[in-house]
Structures are given as C-alpha cells and as structure tokens.
C-alpha cells in the first residue's frame, strides 16, 4: 500500500492508511470504518502557505478574489488577489475567522459553501446586490475539509472618503486607485461558472497531493523514529537475520555488546556469537529451527564477543511475520546478563553459606544435645529396668513418662538435622527392594505404646499380592511413624488409625500408602499449609506438645526424594487421610544399564545364582547383610547388578546377580569363592555358583526385549528358589 496509490483514489474510505496515521493520533476510525481526521491533520491538509500559491495563481488568472474557508464558512488565512474596490465595500480587512468574504449578508454561514459541501459540487451564489461568488468543496473521501470561495469584483464606484482611506492603505494615490477601480472588468457570470469546475478540480487535486505528502512525511518520520529508537538502545543488542541465520541488520547496542562493527558482521552467520562447544553441539541451528517452528526461541547461555571473551547472555529470537504471511526474517534481542548472573550466584552462594552455617550450627547443637540426652536416657532406663532396685508403681509411671519425653526430644533433635539437610540438599534416600507390608508393621509396632496410652486402635490393611517398593526402608518407616504419631496426636481417645497399602490407581508404577485417623480433621485452608515448614494447626489441646511441626515437612521432602507424591484428604470433625506414593520395584529399572539391545542380542547378559549353603544347620539371618557386602565386592559396580533378596531366609540363602560380559560368570564365580573363604575363615559356608545366559531374539523393539528378559529372570528365579529347576 503506497501513499501515492492511496492519494489518487477518490471518494473512498481512508481506512488503509489508518495504521500509520493512527499511530500518530492523526485519524480514527468510526464504526462504519470511516476515517475521522484529527484537527491537527486538518490544519496540515489546509496549510495556508501551501495553498497560497495555487489560490493566488488562480485568482490572478481568472481575475477574481479567492479564499479558503472551513466547513462553517469561516475564512482561513487571507483572501487572495483582493481588489481595492471590493475591499472598500467590505469595509474591513477580511481576516482569519471572519465569515464568507463574498456574501453581502453578514450572517453566516454562507449558503453556497454549505450547499457545496453537501452536494460535493461547485455552487454559485447570487446575492441581492447582484454579486456573484462560487464555492467549491474540499472533500477527502467522505470527510469535509472546507471550501474554496472565489468572488466577482464589485462594480460600483466607491465613495470619495472611503476611496482615500483605501488608497492610503494600498500606498497609492486616490487618483491611481480610482483608475484601477475603473479599469476593472467584472468577470462575467458565465466565465465564473465555467472556471468553477476548474477551481473544483484544482482544489481536489491539490488536496490529495497534500495528503500524499503528509502521509509520506509521516511514514518517513515513523521510520526514522523507529530507527533511532532501535539504534538508540544501548543496553540490548538488537539485530535481525535471514532464515539461514545470516545477520541482516545490527544496532549500536549489538556493536557495543558483541564488539563487531556493522561492516564486519552483516552477512555473517549468527553462530559466530556462540562458543565452540555450543557450535559443536549444534545449538545455533537448534535455536534457529525452534524460532522458525514455534515463532520464538528463548535461551540463556554463554556467548562470545568479537574479542572471544565470554559473557552470559539472555537471548530472545522472534520470527518476523507479515500478517498471515511467510516468515521474512528473525529478530534477536540479546541482553548481557553476566552481572546479573554474578549477583544471582553471589546471592545463591550466600544462601548456601548461610544454610551450611545453619547446618553446622544445628549439627553442633544436635551433637551437644545428644550427649546429655544419652546420659538421661541411660540413667532413666537403668532405674526403670530395676537395675538399681525395685520401684513403686508411681515411681515407675513417672519414669516411664520421663522416658517418653527423652524419646520425643531425641526425635526433635533428629528432625532439626533433617531440616537443615533439606536446605543444603543433603537429605538423601537410599532406595532398595522393600516390602510395604513389612514397613507398615514395623512402624505400627513402634507407635503402639503411644496409641495404647490414648486407647486408639491401630489397624493395617494391605492388599494381597502387592509388588515390592523401591524405597529407603528407614525413611519410609520415618514417614509412616510421623503420619501415625500425627494421627494419634489429633485423634481423641477411643479413635482408630488405619494404615493401608495398595496399588496406586493413577499410575501402576507406584503403590499408594495411606494413614487415616478419626481425629478432628483439617480445614480446607489448613490443608495447603500442613506440609509447610514449622506448620502447626492451632486450637488443639495437644498443640503445645506436638513437637517442632517439622514432621510433615520432612515427610514431604522424603516422599519427593522417592519421586512420590504426598497429599491429604480430610473432613472437619471426621478425620484425615494422608496419602503418599512410592515407586514399585522394577527389575527393568534396576538393570536398565545391563539390558541394552546390544548386550541382550549378543547374549552377554548372564543370570548368576549364588547359593550359600551352611555345612551344618542353616545360615543365620544376622549375617545375611555381611554376605551381601562380600558379594557386592565381587561384582563390577557399574556393569553388574546384585538383585535384592527375593525370598525370606531359607536354610540355603540364594543371591542373584545379573552380570554382563563374555566371561562374567567365570570371573565372578572365582571371586565369590575366594572372598567368601576370606570372610568365613572357619569354612562353615559353602557357595554354589550357577548361571544361565539370557539371550533375546534380535530386531524386536527394546521395550519388548526388556519385558521378555525380565519375565524370564522372574521365572528362572522362582523356579530356582522352589528347587524346581536350578541354574547350571
């Protein structure tokens, strides 16, 4: 859409020009998409200096006086080619703002002007004095801008007194003026009429030319101001590039930030601002592709200046689109965030340092608290256990309460340390193969004393045939005990607490454990808060004895570190249920690094069974852990996997290893024999090592191969344990 093309159209709405003019407040669009011109633009269009020349030329040629008026017939600027006699009659200088200078009648508006604007045609007016003047409208589309009025010279003789005054005004002698006046030929009405069309066309053409000129000037100004805006941005690098990533424009900020002059960078690929490692990793292409595909790519990373110095940049690439059209190029805004990053790093370091300080402090406090706590514990239990003589019933009761408090203190000290570990990211879990049922029973037996004191019944409901979980047993016990103790605290006497374990309905890779109580419940507002640090629900008689309020916070952190979720459902007055999920143990997950397609198809994966047989009797449960540690030393920690125990203690204890490598079996078997001998120098244990190679059909998808091999291992393990089919 060019300005010329627009300017030459007539009687059309101006809407195409709206976007640019509107940006300057030049015009606005009404409901029927007509353009309303602002007063400023009207003034510009009717600029008196610009119109002056053309009006004067016309007036002189046709020998009429001519002037510009606004829509109401008020004179704009001066009347051109004014003639003395005419002027005399008006008896005043026709000035800006006066009414139609040609109407004898003093009452505005001039009917000719009004009619001309309404009809869009030239209108000739005759007044009662026999004067003729013509009004032609100035229209831009449907917009009325004003009119040009041209008038016939008055042909009556002036009065002498007035003549002298006018002569004086014009600086000529009265005699001369008289001659001038007498020499004037009135323009005939027909000539005026004929030339009115010329005047109309002239006015209309000039108006459009003016509009075009204004439009152009405006466009140029907008362009210029945008360019100086872009150029003036010093703190950001702004540049554009074509679809292949070649730089097409470059602002002062870019030159300042990246150190390339315009001439050095234009046409170069923007990859030159990336570090060699990023280029090697294909980052420039990736970002380009993303911006082309998604319209935008945002990134933070190291970039290189021309002098090869690195800086931390925040980069935003945007695709340049025309409405609905293809991408024409890409614009990049780059911000040097090195300082910001430095500050953020310093803040983070300060935070870490503070957390470390806190951890050191708490670790010290915990240590210092534990020493006297230990003495109190020993003295209390010594007396309580009757080591120092018999006790009365009351003495025993008091000491039992003292012991309860010692245990509470001990838990609080542990919680304090855990919470600091959360902040220093040191709260770790060591997941292993564990039974949720067993963990629940252990937790329940720990909490039993507390529950019995309030006559609260503890129950567990574990769905049959549940898989094992992959979790840290000590930590899961801690979570369960936290939740159960919490339940006991907020459940009135004679209530009940139920601990359940079942498959998680939303994700069969998880079990869902829950602890339900029949306590006071948690209001919806507090439900969000209970897992917060130091959260404590007020208005409970027990609140004063509810510990540090860290239990649920730590529980949540522990669940999250198991990749699980924790949440609460509750009804006021009816009780609460806390749920958390734990991942199901998966052979495929545990052995993922062994079960590669290459290993499986090459047949280098071996299942090894180690049966530890006692020469006489059975193997003591207490040393299973020790044997496991011996076996762990016999395998390659990064290549082989020692499977978790698949069964409870048997007369013969069996361990399974998934090993990888062509001669894995021989190497591991000889190591096991040697190491167990070292460990068991009395030779009362006899290891029997057997193996089976696991091979899958090649060419199947890896998931299928893994499913096949894990199913096979499970079958083999089961058959081996049941003695049905032993490995060889």
């Amino acid at each position, binding site marked *: 859409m060019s300005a010329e093309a627009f300017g030459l159209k007539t009687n059309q709405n101006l809407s195409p020009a709206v976007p640019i003019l509107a940006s300057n407040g030049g015009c606005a669009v009404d409901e029927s998409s007509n353009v309303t011109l602002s007063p400023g633009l009207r003034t510009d269009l009717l600029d008196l200096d610009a119109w002056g020349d053309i009006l004067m030329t016309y007036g002189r040629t046709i020998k009429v006086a001519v002037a510009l008026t606004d829509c109401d017939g008020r004179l704009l600027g001066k009347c051109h080619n004014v003639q003395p006699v005419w002027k005399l009659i008006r008896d005043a200088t026709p000035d800006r703002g006066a009414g139609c200078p040609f109407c004898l009648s003093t009452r505005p508006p001039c009917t000719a002007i009004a009619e001309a604007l309404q009809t869009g045609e030239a209108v000739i007016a005759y007044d009662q004095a026999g004067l003729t003047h013509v009004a032609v409208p100035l229209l831009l589309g449907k917009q009325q801008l004003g009119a040009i009025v041209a008038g016939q010279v008055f042909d009556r003789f002036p009065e002498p007194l007035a003549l002298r005054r006018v002569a004086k005004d014009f600086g000529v002698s009265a005699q001369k003026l008289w001659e001038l006046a007498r020499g004037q030929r009135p323009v005939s009405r027909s000539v005026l009429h004929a030339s009115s069309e010329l005047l109309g066309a002239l006015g209309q053409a000039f108006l459009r030319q003016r509009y075009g000129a204004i439009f152009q000037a405006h466009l140029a100004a907008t362009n210029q101001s945008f360019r100086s805006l872009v150029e003036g941005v010093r703190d950001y690098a702004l540049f554009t590039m074509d679809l292949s990533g070649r730089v097409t424009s470059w602002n002062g900020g870019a030159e300042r930030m990246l150190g390339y002059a315009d001439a050095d960078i234009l046409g170069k690929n923007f990859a030159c601002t990336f570090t060699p490692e990023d280029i090697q990793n294909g980052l420039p292409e990736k970002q380009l592709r993303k911006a082309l595909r998604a319209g935008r790519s945002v990134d933070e990373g190291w970039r290189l200046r021309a002098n090869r110095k690195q800086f931390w940049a925040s980069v935003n690439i945007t695709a340049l689109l025309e409405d609905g059209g293809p991408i024409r190029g890409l614009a990049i805004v780059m911000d040097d965030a090195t300082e910001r990053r430095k500050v953020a790093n310093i803040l983070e370091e300060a935070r870490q340092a503070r957390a470390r300080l806190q951890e050191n402090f708490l670790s010290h406090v915990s240590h*210092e608290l534990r020493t006297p*706590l230990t*003495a109190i*514990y020993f003295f209390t239990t010594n007396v309580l256990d009757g080591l120092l003589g018999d006790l009365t019933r009351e003495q025993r009761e008091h000491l039992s309460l003292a012991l309860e408090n010692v245990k509470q203190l001990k838990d609080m000290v542990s919680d304090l340390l855990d919470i600091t570990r959360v902040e220093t990211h040191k709260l770790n879990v060591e997941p292993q193969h564990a039974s949720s049922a067993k963990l629940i029973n252990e937790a329940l037996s720990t909490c039993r004393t507390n529950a019995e004191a309030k006559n609260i019944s503890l129950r567990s409901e574990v769905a049959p045939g549940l898989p094992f979980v992959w979790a840290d047993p000590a930590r899961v016990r801690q979570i369960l005990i936290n939740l159960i103790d919490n339940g006991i605290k907020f459940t009135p006497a004679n209530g009940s607490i139920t601990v359940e374990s079942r498959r998680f309905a939303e994700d069969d890779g998880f079990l869902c454990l829950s602890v339900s109580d029949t306590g006071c419940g948690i209001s919806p507002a507090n439900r969000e808060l209970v897992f917060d640090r130091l959260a404590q629900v007020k208005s409970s008689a027990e609140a004063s004895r509810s510990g540090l309020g860290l239990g649920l916070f730590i529980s949540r952190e522990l669940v999250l570190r198991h990749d699980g979720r924790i949440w609460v459902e509750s009804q006021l007055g009816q009780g609460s249920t806390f749920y958390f999920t734990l991942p199901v143990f998966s052979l495929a997950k545990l052995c993922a690094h062994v079960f590669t397609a290459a290993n499986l198809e090459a047949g280098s994966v071996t299942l090894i069974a180690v049966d530890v047989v006692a020469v006489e009797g059975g193997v003591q449960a207490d040393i299973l852990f020790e044997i496991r540690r011996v076996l762990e030393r016999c395998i390659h920690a990064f290549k082989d996997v020692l499977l978790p125990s698949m069964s409870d203690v048997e007369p013969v204890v069996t361990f399974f290893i998934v090993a990888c490598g062509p001669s894995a079996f021989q190497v591991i078997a000889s190591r096991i024999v040697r190491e167990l001998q070292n460990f068991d120098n009395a030779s*009362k244990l006899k290891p029997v090592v057997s193996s089976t190679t696991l091979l899958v059909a090649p060419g199947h998808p890896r998931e299928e191969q893994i499913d096949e091999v894990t199913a096979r291992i499970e079958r083999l393990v089961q058959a081996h344990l049941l003695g049905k089919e032993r490995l060889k």
Partner: protein
Amino acid sequence: MTGKKILIVDDDQHLLLGLTPRLKANGYRVLSAADAISAITVARKEAPDLVILDLGLPAGDGFVVLERMRSLADLVDIPVIVLSARDPAVNKQRALDAGALAFFQKPPDNHEFLTAIRGALGETVALSSFLKT
C-alpha cells in the same frame, strides 16, 4: 557370668556412669578410658574383649584410636562398636571402613545396643561361625 571385659572409651563421665550398670547387669566387667591415648594404653594392658568407642575424644579422636588399634598386633582383633553423637550420615561408613563393627548414634536403643554387643562378643553370632545351633 562370662566376665568378659568391655572397655568404654568416652570423655563423658555421666555416660560411663549410665552405661556401666547395664553392662554389669549383663555380666560384663567394665573398664574405662577418657581420651585417645589412655584408650590405647588401657587396651594394651587389659586386653578387653570389646571396645565401645566415642568419636569425639581429647588427644585425638575415635578414628585415631581405630587406626592405632588396627596397626597393633595385640589390638587388631578386638571388636569395636562406635557410640557417638555425631551424624551417622557422615561418620558411619567412615567408622566401618576404619574397622569398627557397628555404629550407634547416641542415644542408642538399649536392646539393639546390647544385641550388637553380644554379637560382637560372639555370644550369639560369631563372625567365624554363622550357623544356627
């Protein structure tokens, strides 16, 4: 009464006072040392059957004692149970690697602690005989 000798190495006299009656009640004789140097001296002189060792000690910490014991032929076979207020996350593995048999954080559970002592003394499970009887 086995009359086995247990050496408690701890600088906290109250711990000694609190732990001694329980050990005695279980038939052990109790010796004590309050710092790293006397721990070695007493151990060499008395040849205890078990050492209960604190980690924070005057004149060199518990790890120094463990190291020293492992380098002396007459002490190398004496089982050591560490009983310390220190954080097990940091110290347990280190203590086991240095030759301790078990690590207990203070305060220990009486029952578990005694079970470990019995185990270390070979009264229920000896390291050299893992068999059920």
